[in-house]
């Protein structure tokens, strides 16, 4: 799907298991590779991440599976602390 990069800003990010991650705050562009490098997450779901030791959260573009009304990313077991479900 072809779109403008500002359409991404503010979209909610969920994993394929339905966990809310946060909202798209910014996008990192790889100028030499002419592709999207990663997505910067704002309003991070603080139940999933211990943010004290982090400056912020960036999601690499390769784990994004779909973008439309929301951004869907692959569920990485172990990447998300806490939260509901089977992972710890």
């Amino acid at each position, binding site marked *: *799907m*072809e*779109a*403008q*990069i*500002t359409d*991404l*800003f503010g979209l909610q990010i969920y994993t394929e298991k339905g966990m809310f991650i946060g909202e798209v705050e*910014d*996008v*990192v*562009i*790889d*100028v*030499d*590779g*002419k*592709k*999207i*490098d990663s997505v*910067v997450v704002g309003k991070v779901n603080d139940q999933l991440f211990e943010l004290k030791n982090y400056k912020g959260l960036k999601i690499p*573009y*390769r784990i*994004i599976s779909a*973008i439309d009304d929301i951004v869907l990313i692959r569920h990485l077991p172990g990447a998300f602390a806490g939260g509901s479900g089977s992972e710890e």
Partner: protein
Amino acid sequence: MTRVFARSLSRKKIMSNDGKLIGTLKNIRVDFDSGQVIGMLVHPDSTFDTASYEMEDDKVLKIPFEAVKDIKDYIVVDRYLARK
């Protein structure tokens, strides 16, 4: 390898590699499936002759991202690749 934040590019000036001011960045077109950056939508500067460039509604200049040489204080584009 140059990596930039998309929001930091907002209203950045675009310059051709012969030193001409082309305009200011309006938006970036991307393909969400492949993650490829396709092109830039540019507000042309009033001094810039847009005759040989691809235009949208006669207001917005479309520049393919292949033309981009580098992005630092300005976005520098190749003046031949930027044409249609």
